[in-house]
């Protein structure tokens, strides 16, 4: 499915309107028409046109009044005015009110074609800027979706399968595994790649603010709503909307969200007009969706509606063989970012990095590599650049939902490192209870105390999740 730009043609003269409709169709655009300004205003919210071409002189509402109303309703949509009056004051008036451009009838069709292309280009750029401004997180911070391991090959396979459809997708995985990157890749591989990709974190804001962010609001909808604002659903029209941490959404918002999924339309907060959008929805959660559903955090009907495609992103510890590739990718990225020429990480460093459990997943690995990269004075990363002699001290083990009793130790890992990881993992498994951990390790509490002091971890809760 390719998403064509939709153009709304407004002209009270039927022959001109039909000619323009036929021509724009042959130029590859989807079109709709209105014979009056008021009809255009009724159609616009449903059509979400990328461009409006309107006649200036019309009986019920002239082109300038329509332009003015459209600017209130959808300010980023460019409007081209066609006029039978070849006077300078008309042209100046149109441009002053914010028309993208104007053309005198009979229209020079080559010029119109060029103008349409330029106006759509500009509209796309404006959309992109708005979306980028709203994005709080650095989507690309995690780098590309790297990995040749079996779990990642399965992720790639599922992404390709889902990209061919417009069905909703539910992504789940621990914090830092790259769920947003998976959603972005899904978007880039789909026919919607030319459209926008909009991401919103449902856990980052309170309920009213989140609803306003997702659905938009009308002026005066609530105390601080001084202006009308388009929501993420409108911004993502023709593209993909990622709702991250969807299980954190309040039940009422989940119900509204479900309605959009089922009907493809919604109203802005305080709005009366039903707005229709063409958006592919991707939801992501770091919780086990079935468990969240049982706990009542995730509406059952929403889960089943989203569960057309489910994509589980594996934690880094289940694909440790991908770590060398990921580290290489980060080093390439940081060479550009910090203008350095580091060629890679030596074997010892890679071994240490592969041995760690990475409870904060790829995000945590990235932080450790970035810190080592900044500290590195040579052209190769060595263990001495890893924070506090080893990344484990930075990234203390946590009580993640995986297997807390398993510890994979590669051959060649320094014995002191094995000891440290083993002790910290045991402590984490015992929820930081030092007495029970010491019992399990068959050492005294005093010995455990000394060890933690030596590693600079005394007083720190190693069982606390360290992901950002």
């Amino acid at each position, binding site marked *: 499915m390719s998403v064509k730009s939709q153009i709304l043609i407004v002209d009270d*003269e039927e*022959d*001109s309107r039909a*000619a323009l409709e036929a021509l724009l169709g*042959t130029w590859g655009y989807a079109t709709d028409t209105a014979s009056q300004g008021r009809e255009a205003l009724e159609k616009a919210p449903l059509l979400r046109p990328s461009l409006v071409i309107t006649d200036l002189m019309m009986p019920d509402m002239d082109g300038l009044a329509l332009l003015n109303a459209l600017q209130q309703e959808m300010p980023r949509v460019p409007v081209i005015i066609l006029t*039978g009056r070849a006077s300078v004051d008309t042209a100046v008036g149109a441009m002053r009110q914010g028309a993208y451009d104007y053309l005198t*009838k009979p*229209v020079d069709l080559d010029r119109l074609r060029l103008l349409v292309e330029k106006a759509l280009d500009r509209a796309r750029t404006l959309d992109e800027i708005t979306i980028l401004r709203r994005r709080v997180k650095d989507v690309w911070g995690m780098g590309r979706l790297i990995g040749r391991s079996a779990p990642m090959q399965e992720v790639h396979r599922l992404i390709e399968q889902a990209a061919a459809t417009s069905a909703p997708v539910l992504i789940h995985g621990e914090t830092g595994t790259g769920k947003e990157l998976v959603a972005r890749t899904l978007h880039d591989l789909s026919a919607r790649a030319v459209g926008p990709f909009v991401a919103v974190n449902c856990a980052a804001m309170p309920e009213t603010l989140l609803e306003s962010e997702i659905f938009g609001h009308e002026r005066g909808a609530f105390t601080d709503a001084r202006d009308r604002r388009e929501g993420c659903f409108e911004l993502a029209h023709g593209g993909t909307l990622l709702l991250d941490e969807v299980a954190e959404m309040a039940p009422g918002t989940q119900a509204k969200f479900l309605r959009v999924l089922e009907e493809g339309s919604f109203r802005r907060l305080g709005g009366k007009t039903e707005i229709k959008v063409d958006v592919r929805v991707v939801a992501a959660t770091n919780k086990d969706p079935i468990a969240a559903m049982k706990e009542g955090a995730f509406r059952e009907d929403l889960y089943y509606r989203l569960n057309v495609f489910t994509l589980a992103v594996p934690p880094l510890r289940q694909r440790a063989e991908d770590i060398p590739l990921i580290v290489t990718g980060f080093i390439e990225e940081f060479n550009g970012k910090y203008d350095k020429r580091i060629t890679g990480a030596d074997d010892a460093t890679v071994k240490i990095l592969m041995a760690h459990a990475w409870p904060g997943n790829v995000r945590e690995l990235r932080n450790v590599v970035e810190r080592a990269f900044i500290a590195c004075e040579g052209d190769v990363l060595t263990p001495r650049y890893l924070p506090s002699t080893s990344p484990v001290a930075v990234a203390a083990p946590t009580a993640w939902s995986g297997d807390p009793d398993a510890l994979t130790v590669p051959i060649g890992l320094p014995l002191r490192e094995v000891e440290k990881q083993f002790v910290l993992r045991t402590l984490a498994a015992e929820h930081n209870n030092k007495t029970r951990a010491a019992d399990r390790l068959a050492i005294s509490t005093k010995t455990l105390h000394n060890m933690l002091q030596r590693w600079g971890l005394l007083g720190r809760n190693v069982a606390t999740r360290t992901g950002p």
Partner: protein
Amino acid sequence: MDRRETARERFDDLEGAIGRLGNLSDEARADLTDRLTALRTCLEAERVADREELHQLGHDLRAPLNAIAGWAHILRLEATTAGTVLRAADVFDRNVRALTRVIDGYTADPGS
């Protein structure tokens, strides 16, 4: 030089000549000045109306021309069907008649 400029020059000459009349009473001079001001306002309104009429004429001519130009462009496209040709012929016919009506309306003798 167009006829309105000629009229304005003559009006200015007349205003100058009145100014040079020495033995006019103040009352007569004020009366003449008022009449001249009224005439000037009248001329200006006529000029605005003329301009508006021309703009309207432009619009009335350009609208049918726009339809004709659009459909002529469509006929030059490779994928034109017989139905499109017939539709274009209808558009040409209808808009030529509309243009004729506009021209007739503007050129008709006001007394006829």
